[in-house]
Each structure stands twice: as C-alpha cells, then as structure tokens.
C-alpha cells in the first residue's frame, strides 16, 4: 500500500459558501484547564476540523468553517463542555447543492 496522503479539510471547506456572523460564534467551548475526553474527541470527529488544541493543551473552536452538522452537540453538550446553537437566520454555511 502506498503512503496515505494527508487530507486537508481546509481545501474541502474552500468549495463551500459561508456568511460569517462576525463576533457571534454559534458554538462556544466552556473555559477549562484540562479538556474532557469528549472535547478531545472533537479534534478528530468534527468533519470541518473546527476544534483545535492551543499551545496550553486546551481545546478551542473556530466556527467560521462549521457545516452545522451537530456532531459536537451530540458528543459534548451533555457533559457541559460546549454551548450549541444554530447561527442567526441567514448566517452560516449556505449550501449550493446540499
């Protein structure tokens, strides 16, 4: 088997259209010192790779590329790690095909 090329999610998100609601993130990560296992799993499970680890080892979210699937809500809302809403009307991802 050949070596697997690394997948760049950023390139995939580039195909999509978004209307970003600047300054109003629809998902917020609760401040923490050590991330829970649920929150850590989002580094891999988020299909838009919105979740990243900062240099202090905490999980941060950038919602600009969010495709509004709800996976992080299913995994992390119950443990209180995140607050999850839909973007304001008209904002967020705008699917051309869906």
């Amino acid at each position: 088997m050949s070596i697997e090329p690394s997948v760049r999610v950023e390139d995939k998100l580039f195909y999509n259209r978004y209307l970003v609601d600047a300054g109003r993130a629809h998902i917020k990560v609760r401040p923490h010192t050590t991330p829970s296992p649920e929150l850590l799993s989002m580094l891999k499970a988020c299909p838009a790779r919105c979740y990243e680890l900062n240099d202090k080892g905490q999980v941060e979210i950038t919602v600009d590329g969010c495709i509004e699937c709800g996976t992080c809500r299913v995994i992390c809302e119950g443990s209180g790690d995140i607050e999850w809403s839909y973007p304001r009307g008209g904002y967020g991802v705008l699917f051309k095909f869906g």
Partner: protein
Amino acid sequence: MIEEKFDAIVVGAGMAGNAAALTLAQRGLKVLQLERGEYSGSKNVQGAILYADMLEKLIPDFREDAPLERHLVEQRFWMMDDRSHTGLHYRSDDFNEERPNRYTIIRAQFDRWFSQKVREAGATVLCETTVTELAQDAYGKVIGVRTDRADGEIHADVVVLAEGVNGLLGTRAGLRKRPTADKVALAVKEMHFLPRETIEARFNLRGDEGMVIEAAGTISRGMTGMGFIYANKECISLGIGCLVADFQRTGETPYGLLDRFKRHPSVAPLIEGSEVKEYAAHLIPEGGFKAIPQLYGEGWVVVGDAAQLNNAIHREGSNLAMTSGRIAAEAIFQVKSRKDPMTAENLSLYKKMLDESFVIKDLKKYKDMPALMHTQSQNFFLTYPELVSKAMQNFLRVDGTPKVEKEKTTFKSFIKARSWSGLFGDAFRLARAWR
C-alpha cells in the same frame, strides 16, 4: 411581535416541514413556516434519493416542473474489502416507466422548488429566521415560537416541529432528549462534477437513466457505516457515514474515511478527473423504532428527522419525513375541522394515523436491526466482507488447485474467523432481526 395569530407554525423547511406546510395550506389553514436558511434547501443535506409515491400524494403532477436529476434503473450493493468489492446489482428496464418510482435529486434545488409550491398553496414562508425557543404558557402548553428577529414572538394554535435531526427546540423545551452518539450517524459528502456523457459512459446509463451504489465493508474501518455513490445528471454525490459513537471511540476522521473511500480501486476510476464543488456533513437518525420520541403534546407535533423517523436498513428517510409531515397536517386539519382545541389528547390522532402507515410499520419490522448492527460492527463490516472477498477470489482464480481443496480452504477460513456457533449465531440473529 407579530400580532397576527396563525392556525399553525411550521418550524423548518426540509422535506417534513414542506410537506406539512403544503398540506395545511392546501386545507385552507393559516400557516406560517419559518426557515433559518436564506431559502428552503440552503441548510438541507441528503444523498439524495426522492421517492415518487410519497411526493405524488402531495403534488400529483410534480414531474412537470420539479428539478429531478435521474430516474433510477439500477441499484448496486457492494460489499467491500480494501482491494475488491463483491456486488449484487439489480437493473431493470421496467424502471424506465412513464412515472418512475425513484429519482436522484439535489436538495438545495429541489427544496427551493418544493417551497415555491408551499407559497403557491397560500402559506407564509419566512426565511433567514432562526427559531430560538418555543413559547409556552404557564401550564407548559406550546402557544408559539420565539425567533432571533427583534420582538420575535409569534403565536399559533399548534406548532409543527420539522426542525431536523438535531431537534434543538424540542430538546430545549424538554419535549424529548438530545439524540445520543449511538443513535445518530455522521455522514460526509462531496459533489463531484463531470460532463454528462462521462457519467453516462462510466455508469452504463442512457438519457436520464440513473443508478446508485450503496457500499459497506472495510471502508468503514470496523465501524457501523455505509458509503454511497449516486449518479446525478452532471455530477456524482459521493459520501460515507458512520455512527457518531464509533467516530468517538475509534478516533477516525470523517474526511479521512471519505478520502480513503474515494481512493478505493473500485471507486477511484468512477470519479477520475471530476471537479469537487461542495463538501457537506449531516447527521442521520439510526436508532430506528426504539429511538422514536414522544410525537405529540399540548400544542405541538414533531415530524421527520426530528422524530428520528429514518429507515437505516433501506436507506429511506425523506419519504418518511414527507409522509409524517403530511399525516401530521391531516390530523391537525381534522382536529381543527371539529373545532376542537390542539390538546395532546386530540393531537394523538397524528400518532394513531402514523402507526397505521408504512412509516411506523417499517420501523417496527426492523426494530432489532440497529442494536445488532451496532454491537456486531466488527463482524458485519470487517470480518465478513474480507471472508467473502477471499472466497470469491478463491473461486475465480484458476491456479491448478483442485476445486475440492479450494472449497475446503474457503470453509475453513469462515470457521476459523467466526467458528460454527458464531456463524450460526450471526445468521440466526440477522434472520430474527430481519423478519
């Protein structure tokens, strides 16, 4: 605040919401439909296959102007290991009929058309409006909704929750629980564009004929999941989905899975040279009959994906959504016609009617399948596909080995992998869950 009071508010403009809003408006009710996207369809994601029968019940002459892609004449089921697939294909010229049964569609375009029909029937459709919570009276009865628009409380006799798989409003109001990670799948999908002639040549299609491939096996890396490839007119919808709990457990990435599926030697030639124009992700209800929540209450009903109405075995969802939306609307119309209030007792008519339809009957038939597939994922998605591939190759490869020995080798490989009791147990469990 919008002073006007409506007979019904429909939250969401997907398949279920549009079916409900259309039916209510056709029956003469005063309907407000709220949608958070810039138009109906701009937030909606599906494979997508449209089932004509369920749409005909709403819009009999839909074929005249609906944006349909291809009518399906062929279905391929693939059981895949890393280098092969064993296929079961069904193709029939009977599907080239005057009123075809299934079509591929592109949801953003289809839903926009559907929404136009809802408007033409007389409903008020308000887009770019996110409903933030349900408005309830002191007794908990739902009396309307609050939106993110200024002074956004709007009242109605009944609220139809067609809010999709995430079902945020119902959860916030305590009407049902948030879906858990073992009851929903995450699917990712890309739209691959190719010239029409190329698609037709690669998939053996003529004119508007279409085909779909549903694939399972090692592509899901031992997780419970499936891949799909749907031929549209000038593009191919290609995606893969697995249970959220499995992603969480394994640390596999959805995009990594998608790209491996695309590079599979059986798949890569089909999309070679294509231009990708969109990457989407969506949750799919997978819990089946046992995951269906409370469907009605004081002043509300829930329809479609928000009610977890999805048949994971047959890959059907949009038809269950449309049908539940239509039936909920018909129940509401009957209650309204009798001049009765929209109480839980009166709205239980919706559940009664739904129970009698194919929606609940089908989900009931497969009530044990989700648990079986989810607990036996290693066997059904890794072990068996690999065994079948080896058996097929052993059968086909001509190398001087006597056939008797070849058969022995195949039998031994099955026994070694699963043991006699394991094989019989799997067959028995599958048969029992299927019946």
